[in-house]
């Protein structure tokens, strides 16, 4: 309903949209599921190809998308121990259900890895001693493990405060909401990486959906990096841990629908939007944060433009990986020769040389412009900045990539944060 359109234009558009929508609805309801072509099977949703599918076909579609990722990537070999991160959310429940189904004896071409289910408990990090939302979440997750996991599957509940002792102090010392949320996100993955080492697992499976990966891609762009790792099916993080995202082809809405349609009693403990008092979802410092802004933006845009999430992921597929470990195993000589950032394991981003003999791109980029603005110093009425370009970079060239430097500089207790992010035993 555009107020600037004339009446005639509005009438024409409305009649066209109505006819199209009516035609779609009528054809779906009358002809039944467009996948199995059974008129008695009422369609429940439309999937990516805009096909109206019934409940059985939708469940089969989700299973296919889950299995196809493993088949194409050939990442997990038979008998491997694989850590499955379970948070109690939509994606985690979908992952648990699909892994359990894939490993069932009766399944055709069943999956053959050995899963180890792990829940990372953040209650003590936020001083939740039994009556807060995080303690309740832990109890609910353990009940789900007992109710839905076969006895032969390993399951563990690990405490984040024990895996990362300085995390509570580091979170309290973050100076802005973006750094707070970024640290939380990294600490979850760091805990999973430590758990995988503890339980001798070679891969970590997480329930990140296409929507979540698109969010992470936009987040990394807003923090200065655009590479294939944020939205890829698998990515090698700091410490050489291979993270696998088998739900990459499903949106958050589809995983939520999967939980509802499966009707097996496994429901998310903490569906979004979650408990507003949960410290895991607020910014810690009040005000907006980049992750919060992007999550609400993408959710809204996806409603109007359903291909948005897939467009972002498809663009990411065309990019090179910034992971140094991934580059060394491929023919990418530039990535293989790059120094990894000890905090995130990705290649150190190009630092401006400050030398006119260098190429234009290294001499003129946004990072240089930002540093120049932040470090301008005027001497008298001289029209030239007194800080020479070479001087700006003399104190730079530190250990970390730019994104991690920003995160570390945003914490008033930098040493504590470094201990949380960096592996002490040198496995990085």
């Amino acid at each position, binding site marked *: 309903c*555009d107020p*600037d*359109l004339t009446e005639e234009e509005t009438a024409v558009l409305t009649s066209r949209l109505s006819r199209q929508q009516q035609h779609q609805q009528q054809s779906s309801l009358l002809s039944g599921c467009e996948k199995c072509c059974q008129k008695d099977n009422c369609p429940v949703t439309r999937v990516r190809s805009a096909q109206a599918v019934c409940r059985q076909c939708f469940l089969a579609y989700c299973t296919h998308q889950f299995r196809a990722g493993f088949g194409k990537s050939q990442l997990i070999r038979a008998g491997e121990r694989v850590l499955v991160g379970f948070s109690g959310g939509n994606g985690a429940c979908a992952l648990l259900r699909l892994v359990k189904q894939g490993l069932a004896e009766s399944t055709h071409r069943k999956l053959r890895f050995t899963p180890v289910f792990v829940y990372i408990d953040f209650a003590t990090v936020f001083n939740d001693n039994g009556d807060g939302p995080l303690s309740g979440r832990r109890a609910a997750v353990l009940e789900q493990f007992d109710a839905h996991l076969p006895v032969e599957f390993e399951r563990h509940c690990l405490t984040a405060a024990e895996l990362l002792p300085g995390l509570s102090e580091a979170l309290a010392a973050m*100076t*802005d*909401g*973006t750094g707070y949320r970024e640290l939380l996100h990294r600490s979850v993955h760091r805990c999973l990486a430590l758990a995988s080492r503890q339980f001798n697992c070679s891969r970590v499976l997480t329930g990140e959906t296409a929507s979540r990966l698109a969010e992470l*891609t*936009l987040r*990394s*762009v*807003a*923090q*200065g*990096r*655009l590479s*294939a790792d944020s939205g890829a099916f698998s990515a090698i993080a700091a410490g050489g841990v291979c993270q696998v995202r088998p739900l990459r082809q499903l949106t958050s809405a589809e995983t939520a629908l999967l939980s509802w349609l499966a009707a097996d009693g496994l429901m998310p403990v903490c569906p979004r939007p979650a408990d507003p008092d949960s410290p895991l979802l607020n910014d810690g*410092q009040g*005000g*907006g*944060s*980049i992750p*919060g*802004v*992007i999550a609400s*933006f993408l959710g809204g*845009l996806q409603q109007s*433009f359903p*291909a948005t999430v*897939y*467009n*972002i992921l*498809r*663009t990411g597929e*065309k*990019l*090179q990986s910034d992971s140094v470990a991934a580059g060394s195993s491929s023919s990418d000589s530039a990535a293989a020769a790059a120094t990894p950032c000890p905090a995130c394991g990705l290649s150190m*981003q*190009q630092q401006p040389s400050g030398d006119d003999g260098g190429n*234009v*791109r290294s*001499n*003129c*980029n*946004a*990072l*240089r*412009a*930002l540093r*120049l*603005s932040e470090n*301008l*110093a*005027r001497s008298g009425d001289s*029209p*030239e*900045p007194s800080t020479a*370009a070479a001087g700006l970079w003399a104190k730079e060239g530190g250990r970390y990539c*730019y994104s991690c430097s*920003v995160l570390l500089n945003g914490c008033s207790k930098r040493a504590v944060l470094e201990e949380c992010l960096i592996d002490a035993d040198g496995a990085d």
Partner: protein
Amino acid sequence: PQRQPQRRCRFCEKKPQLRRPKTGHAVCRDCFFWAFEAETHDTIVSSRMFSPGERVAIGASGGKDSTVLAYLLKTLNERHNYGLDLRLLAIDEGIAGYRDDSLDALRRTEVSLGLPLTIFTYRDLYGWTMDEVVRAAGRRSNCTFCGVFRRQALDRGAGHLKADKLATGHNADDVAETVVMNLLRGDAARLSRCADGVTHTGGGLPARCKPLKYAYEKEIVLYAYFKRLDYFATECLYAPAAYRGHARALVKDLERARPAALLHIIQAAEQIRFRTDARMPELDTCRLCGYVSSQPVCKACVLLDGLNSGNPGWLLANPRLVRLSNSSSECLLMLGVIAPNAAVAPAPGAAARDRHALRRRILDDFLNLFFGIAF
């Protein structure tokens, strides 16, 4: 954390008059001018944007960005002896109540800066004004028409002026919005070049430069305000429905959360590396008008064809027909109905419209007769 009130300018002893949106530094007016001009000078020099003796056409609309750009380039050209020959280049899209008012502001800028101004109109180049395009095509995709036409018009205008470079007033907000928009739409090809400070269009056309690429829009407004520059500050009448509005909303929210996010987004796009096996469209030239294009027939010719044949919206409503429309234009070329490069020097508007309509009718009859295809 709450900012403490500053009693002194960051660079001198004077009382601060504003806080820079980019860095949060409290500065006095003179130091703000100095910092803004120093940063723009650094962008120009470090990217080797211009060479001495070049003629630079400044794409000017009468708005704040192009007015500040013209003022800055003139000031820096004189202060640092760039040796440039600066000209103002404006495109009149023919939007009553908007473009005519901004051109009045531009004419005043021409007088105050002493830079010669040349105006090209859509009517002269294409035979259509934007008001006529909107009446024919509706309000839903008018920005597509205007953006495509304006880009080509600027290049042709700069070529007419025999300019070596075309400078535009795109600021950091614009570049960040473009990066986000290309990412949301999955346009990898545009994403690879949208953050470049100097873009070589090819086809003998002048290279495009963005001297204000790292300048924040808010700082440009502050600079124009404190310098009392004369500019026109109203949004285009047809802009509200554009897709870019979504990207703009996100960029504004990101800037509020963390001011440096704009430059971080640009940094991410500048450092982007594509896989060697990723397929990208190759740039060639349009077979009808000779403009650079990744398709056999450029988008401007295709859109113009639709307008002249009375079906302006059919292509936008049916994106799959883009390839078909290019094929139809290839058919016209093969049949000898259209000579290649027919519109390199665009003909006066009305005659061009009549010729396009005739070609369209011939093609429709041909295809209906032999293949039963109707457009």
